[in-house]
């Protein structure tokens, strides 16, 4: 256990170390790349420290706040959009997953709708809501809703019929069947949907902020581009990636705690 854990950490260190070494060699080390276009890891690290260390989270001349402040603004939007997606996706998924009629009626239209990428909702969002928070949340929901909803439907439909029969012979009512059997049985798959959705929500917020916002990590990256602060662009991108990794790790950890029965 500790042996394999140590090994895992060594591989992680080797992987990140190798990546940084190649990056450094290409830039400062051997001077192959133009550092105005591709700054060295050292410059990016300085940029991260500089942007993150600012005491003002939500104010400042350059990006309207520090790196952390802008990440927090984006995270707030992601959480809002994710929460709406989760509630709507699970509720609608339960409804449609447990009703063959509703499923047959809605499936063709939904198959079309799910193929529309969230960023293509941006023009519509701008027409409907203008440059507002609502627009950004709308775009996040347009992306994050689908994995939750579709995984809920699929999870519900994969419920073993014999479990439903067993519960009904034990006296479960329709509502109890939905909550205690269908939902309980679908929960692992719903969780997979939540995890996928969070990743999509994070992409969607950055896309939305690139175009229509004056705050957030997407705005920071876009504004850094305008003033050709390439290290800041990359610093922002790394922050986006790091947030994704942290969120995913949190989901995996939660999954292991919640679904104890699958691990044993």
């Amino acid at each position, binding site marked *: 256990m500790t042996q394999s854990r140590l090994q895992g950490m060594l591989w992680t260190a080797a992987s990140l170390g190798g990546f940084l070494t190649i990056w450094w060699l290409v830039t400062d080390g051997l001077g192959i790349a133009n550092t105005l276009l591709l700054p060295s890891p050292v410059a990016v690290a300085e940029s991260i420290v500089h942007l993150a260390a600012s005491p003002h989270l939500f104010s400042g001349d350059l990006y309207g706040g520090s790196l952390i402040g802008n990440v927090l603004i984006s995270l707030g939007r992601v959480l809002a959009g994710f929460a709406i997606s989760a509630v709507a996706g699970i509720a609608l998924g339960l409804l449609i997953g447990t009703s063959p009629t509703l499923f047959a009626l809605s499936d063709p239209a939904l198959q079309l709708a799910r193929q529309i990428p969230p960023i293509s909702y941006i023009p519509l969002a701008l027409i409907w809501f203008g440059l507002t928070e609502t627009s950004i949340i709308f775009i996040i929901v347009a992306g994050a809703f689908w994995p939750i909803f579709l995984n809920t439907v699929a999870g519900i439909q994969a419920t073993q019929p014999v479990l439903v029969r067993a519960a009904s012979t034990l006296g479960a009512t329709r509502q109890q069947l939905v909550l205690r059997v269908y939902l*309980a049985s679908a929960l692992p798959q719903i969780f997979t949907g939540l995890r996928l959705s969070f990743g999509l929500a994070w992409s969607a917020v950055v896309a939305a902020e690139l175009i229509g916002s004056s705050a957030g990590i997407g705005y920071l990256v876009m504004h850094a581009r305008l003033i050709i602060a390439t290290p800041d662009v990359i610093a922002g991108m790394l922050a986006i990636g790091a947030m994704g990794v942290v969120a995913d790790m949190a989901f995996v950890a939660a999954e292991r705690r919640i679904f104890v029965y699958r691990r*044993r």
Partner: protein
Amino acid sequence: MGGTGPKPARAAPGDLPPVVARDVSCVFERRGAGAAIVALERIKLEVHDGEFLCVVGPSGCGKTTLLNLIAGFQQPTSGEVLFRGRTIKGPGAERGVVFQEHALFPWLTVRQNVAFGPTVRHLTQAQRRELADRYLDLVGLAGFSDLYPSEISGGMAQRVAIARALANEPEILLADEPFGALDVFTRTSMQRELDQIWQRTGKTIVFVTHSVEEAILLGDRVVVMTPHPGRIREIIPIDLPRPRSALDQPVVELARTILALLERRTEARVEGPRAE
């Protein structure tokens, strides 16, 4: 077996028989050109209070369909199945079912599984626990209550399934080949155990099996069914002391009789009707 529920709505035994099948037929339409399958044809059956009734026959004889009708999972094409005089319209807590596969909820522990019925009937926490523990004790699994179904063996899981059905205190227990998926050794010990549980609880049991031997070992009466169409060939009372062994001479002889009944039926089908 005293009820723990607030007021179990059960007719006094001896009133109306727990289950009556009146001229029950069940036909499944096949899609396309094929002829319809007659799973059951004009079945007449009365289950008595407190008896252990076994239904035996080869696959396709309609024994599972018959059980599904009593459980309320299906409706007959014609005729009716009554529970205490009332037509069965769907599943109900008064008719507990043990399935061939254990059908335990994988996300619940053994104790939570057994307490499922009492939970959905909104009994108090203390009552749920008391019932779950009592019935887990009855099937000899008191020490396993906090494990998940994936952590126990197939035989144990089936015992939990029996405990779960009994903990809901149904009036009648329906079992659909519950030991069919178990190995021979586990199966033998489960038969002995169910025999004891039945003697201790006095529960009415309808037990479907394709094993003639199992039917004779457990049943007060054995309903012998034949396929195409599914019919009751004969109902044979078993007046033998318990516990019975597969090696007892009367058991062996009864098995021979029942097998002969089933074989004669099969030959008749192959050769066409014969003049008796």
